[in-house]
C-alpha cells in the first residue's frame, strides 16, 4: 500500500514537471519570432534539467553521508570560490579577457578550480578531521568567507562599468548557456548517474550509519570517498555551467522527504530530481515573466529556499 503511494507520487510529480515545463515553453509564445523563441526556451529547459538533477542527486547523497537534513554540499563556500574566480579574472585580465567572455574557456577554468577546491576540502580534510563532517563544512565556510572578502576587496578596485559586466557572471542564470557545454555537462552527469544508480542499494545501507554499514559488509570509507568525489564533480559542473544556487538543494530535498517519508534512495533520488526541475522552471518563469529578467534566478531560489530553511529550523523543535 505504501509502495503504491510512493509510485503514484512519482507519477504525479512527473506529470507536474511536464505540465510546468510545457506551460513555460508555450506561455506568451509569439508566432512571429517562434523560431527564435522556441529554441531559446528549449535550451533553458535543458539546462534546468541538467542542473536540477545534478544538484538534487548530489544533495541527496551528501545528506545520506552526513546524516543530516540541513546541510548541503553547496554551503561549504563553493559559491564564494566561484565569485572569487570570476572576480580575479576581471581584476587581473580585465573584462575583455577571453577567460571571461569565452564561455567554454571560463567553464573549464571554473570547473577545474571548483573541483580541486571541493576535492581538497573533502578528501584531504576528511582525513585530517577524522571524518567529522561538521568541522569539514565549517572549514569550507571559513575558506569561503576568506575568498569572499578577497573578492569584495578586488571588486572595490575595478571600475563600475567593469563591475556590471562582472555582476552578470556572478549570478546563476539559465539565459545564455552554451550548447556544447550543456552537452558536455549532460555527458558527465549521465556517467555519474550510472555510477550512482548501479549501486543505489548501498546508499540505503549507508544511511544506517558507519558502524551498521560496515557490519553489513559495505566498505564504508572507500564508498564514502567515492561518493564525495561524485558530489564534488556534480556540484562543480552545475556551478560552472550556470553559476551558484546555494539553497536549491536544501529546498528540494526537504520537500522530497516531506512527501515521500522514506529512507529508500530509489524514490528519494528520482523524486528530488523531479521537484528540483519543477522548482527551477517555476523560478525561471517568475524571473522571465514577472520580473522581466531584472532579477537573477539564484536570488529568487535563495530567497525562497532561505525562508524555507528558517521555517524548517523553527518547526523542528516543536515536534
Amino acid at each position, binding site marked *: 500500500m505504501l509502495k503504491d503511494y510512493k509510485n503514484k507520487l512519482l507519477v504525479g510529480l512527473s506529470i507536474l514537471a511536464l505540465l510546468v515545463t510545457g506551460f513555460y515553453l508555450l506561455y506568451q509564445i509569439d508566432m512571429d519570432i517562434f523560431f527564435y523563441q522556441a529554441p531559446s526556451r528549449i535550451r533553458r529547459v535543458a539546462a534546468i534539467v541538467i542542473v536540477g538533477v545534478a544538484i538534487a542527486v548530489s544533495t541527496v547523497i551528501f545528506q545520506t553521508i552526513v*546524516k543530516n537534513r540541513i546541510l548541503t554540499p553547496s554551503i561549504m563556500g563553493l559559491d564564494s570560490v566561484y565569485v572569487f574566480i570570476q572576480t580575479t579574472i576581471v581584476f587581473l585580465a580585465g573584462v575583455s579577457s577571453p577567460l571571461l567572455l569565452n564561455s567554454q574557456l571560463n567553464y573549464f577554468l571554473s570547473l577545474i578550480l571548483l573541483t580541486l577546491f571541493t576535492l581538497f576540502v573533502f578528501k584531504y580534510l576528511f582525513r585530517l578531521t577524522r571524518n567529522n563532517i561538521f568541522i569539514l563544512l565549517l572549514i569550507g565556510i571559513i575558506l569561503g568567507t576568506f575568498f569572499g572578502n578577497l573578492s569584495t576587496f578586488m571588486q572595490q578596485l575595478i571600475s563600475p562599468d567593469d563591475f556590471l559586466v562582472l555582476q552578470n557572471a556572478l549570478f546563476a542564470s539559465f539565459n545564455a548557456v552554451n550548447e556544447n557545454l550543456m552537452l558536455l555537462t549532460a555527458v558527465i552527469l549521465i556517467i555519474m548517474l550510472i555510477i550512482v544508480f548501479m549501486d543505489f542499494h548501498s546508499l540505503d545501507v549507508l544511511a*544506517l550509519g558507519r558502524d551498521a554499514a*560496515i557490519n*553489513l559488509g559495505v566498505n564504508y570509507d572507500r564508498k564514502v570517498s567515492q561518493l564525495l568525489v561524485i558530489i564534488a564533480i556534480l556540484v562543480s559542473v552545475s556551478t560552472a555551467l550556470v553559476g551558484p544556487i546555494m539553497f536549491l538543494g536544501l529546498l528540494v530535498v526537504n520537500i522530497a522527504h516531506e512527501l515521500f*517519508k*522514506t529512507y529508500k534512495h530509489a524514490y528519494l533520488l528520482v523524486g528530488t530530481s523531479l521537484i528540483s526541475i519543477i522548482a527551477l522552471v517555476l523560478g525561471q518563469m517568475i524571473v522571465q515573466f514577472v520580473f522581466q529578467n531584472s532579477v537573477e534566478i539564484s536570488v529568487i531560489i535563495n530567497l525562497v529556499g532561505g525562508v524555507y530553511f528558517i521555517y524548517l529550523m523553527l518547526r523542528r523543535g516543536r515536534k
Partner: protein
Amino acid sequence: MISVKGITKLYGDKKVVDDVSLSIAKGKITSLIGPNGAGKSTVLSMITRLLDNDSGDVLLEGENIFTQPNSELAKKISILKQSNHLELKITVRELIAFGRYPYSKGRLTNEDNALIDEAIDYMELGEFEDRFIDELSGGQRQRAYIAMTIAQDTEYIFLDEPLNNLDMKHSVQIMQILRRLVRERNKTIIIVIHDINFASCYSDNIVALKDGEVAISGTKNEVIKKDILEDIYEMEINIECIMGHQICIYFDEHADATVDDFVKEQAQI
C-alpha cells in the same frame, strides 16, 4: 574460533588498548567486563573491524580478518553497537531486511523474505512489523536490532552493551534470547556488559579488562572470585551463591540505616 593477537590502539600518545590477546571459543557467550575506560568497547570495535588497530592481528578460523573482503566478513560476523539513534523513517521489517544485505545486496529473494519472517517470529516482533523504528520503546527497538543480526545469520555475533537503558525485565528478556541463540543455533556471542551479575549469570566465559590490558580471561567460575574482582574494580565485593548463581554483592553494608536499626532491634530482642 577467533584469536586476537596483541591488538593495540593509540589515541595520540595514550595507549587505550595495550597488547590485548584473547581467544573466543565457539558456541559460547563470552562477556567483556571491566571498569569505565578499560577499553572494552574499543577492543570490540577493533575485533569487528569498525576501528582500525595500530598493531596486532585478529584471526577468524585462522584467517586474518583485516585482509578479508568486507562483504564476505559480513556473512561471518555481525556487530551491534550501543545507542543506535536513527532519524530515518524505517519500519521494523525494513530494518530487519537490511540483515540480508550481505547476501542479496538489496534485491530480496523469496528465501531472504522467509528468513526475515523467521527472524521476526523468533524475536516475537510480528505485531510491530510495520511500525516505524522511532515509535518503539527501548526494549522493542533493541529486539528489532537483534532480529536484524539474526537475519544476517552470522556465526559470530558481537553486541556492545545490549542492556543499556533497559529495565530489569527487558534485560533478562534479551539475555534469555542470547542464551537461546547459543543453545538452539549454536551461535557464538560476545558482549560488552556493565552489570557484573548479568555477566556472571548468563555467560560461559568472561574476559576482564583493566587500563587497556587483559586482567584475566577464563570461564566464569575462574573469573567471578572475590580477590580477582576486588583487584579489578578496586572496591570491596562479596560473592554469594544464590539459587546456583554466583552473585556479587558490592554495596556498602552500612548503606541503609533502616537495615542497621533493624539489625540492632533484632539484637536487643
